[in-house]
């Protein structure tokens, strides 16, 4: 009879071990040990260790699933409510600085760094990221560069191909073309500034609303 009892108990313990497998090692060992001892103590009280008695005993101890569920349920910290910590906005601030003037420090590359930081931030929404990409092409490099060209270009106001509206390139000293060019350059200055300012205001959102 004893071998049947041993077999049933071994089967039970093996089942329990599987159920507890994803707990930390120390806790697994502790539970296995305690339940193993419980079984030994309960078994010692059985009058003749019949199969029925052993089965009843194991049934009273409960399904390994049930024990494991208890171990998981109560043990794990309440991960459902992560505590939102006041996060630092360094990542975002650096992103905005690089977007705006990065290109002045390292042409194209600096702006590109800002772009990468913009898209890797978890604070802005995708819409805001697209906005930052479209309205800050090259940051202030583009308009400042154009101003430089316009200033040294001996009255030739030539915008070349520009994102957000092509400028007429004219070699006649047409004042209207100059006016249009100036307005366009001003817009090109304002657009990145305004966009960056807007993105900066979005940083003040309470982080909780993001959850």
């Amino acid at each position, binding site marked *: 009879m004893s071998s049947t009892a041993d077999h049933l108990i071994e089967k039970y313990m093996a089942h329990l071990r599987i159920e507890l497998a994803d707990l930390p090692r120390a*806790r697994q060992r502790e*539970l296995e040990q305690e339940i193993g001892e419980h079984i030994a103590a309960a078994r010692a009280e059985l009058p003749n260790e019949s199969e029925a008695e052993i089965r009843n005993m194991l049934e009273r101890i409960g399904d390994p699933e049930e024990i494991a569920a208890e171990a998981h349920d109560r043990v794990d910290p309440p991960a459902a409510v992560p505590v939102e910590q006041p996060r630092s906005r360094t990542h975002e601030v650096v992103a905005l600085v690089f977007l705006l003037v990065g290109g002045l420090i390292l042409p194209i590359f600096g702006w590109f760094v800002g772009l990468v930081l913009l898209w890797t931030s978890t604070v802005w929404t995708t819409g805001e990221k697209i906005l930052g990409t479209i309205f800050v092409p090259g940051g202030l490099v583009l308009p400042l560069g154009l101003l430089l060209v316009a200033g040294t270009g001996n009255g030739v106001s030539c915008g070349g191909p520009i994102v957000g509206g092509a400028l007429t390139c004219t070699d006649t000293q047409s004042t209207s073309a100059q006016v249009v060019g100036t307005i366009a350059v001003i817009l090109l200055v304002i657009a990145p500034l305004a966009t960056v300012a807007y993105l900066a205001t979005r940083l003040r959102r309470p982080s909780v609303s993001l959850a």
Partner: protein
Amino acid sequence: MVVAGSQDALLAQMRRGTLQYCVLALLAKEERYGFDLVRALAELDGMVTSEGTIYPLLSRLRRDGLVESTWQESPSGPPRRYYRLTDSGRASLQAFKLEWRRFRDAVDHFVERKARS
């Protein structure tokens, strides 16, 4: 049947929520080892449905610092892990007792009166 089912779930939840304080209360009187503790709880009908679930509970109480355990030689077989209440376990039990009395009296106040009238 839905009502009966949800009532079962509620009772299971209540049992679960109060079980740890019953364990603390048992340990407040004397230190005990697991099997002994389980037996004491099982003496009262309806408190423990699966004896084995006491062990994860004890493990948690120990990690939460409400009980502590020491190994002690047993007259028969290998040494046993004896559990005893810590100061913070005692405080936790005391706080629960006050709340429980209030809760129990409030529920009794409505439930029992209704039943009598």
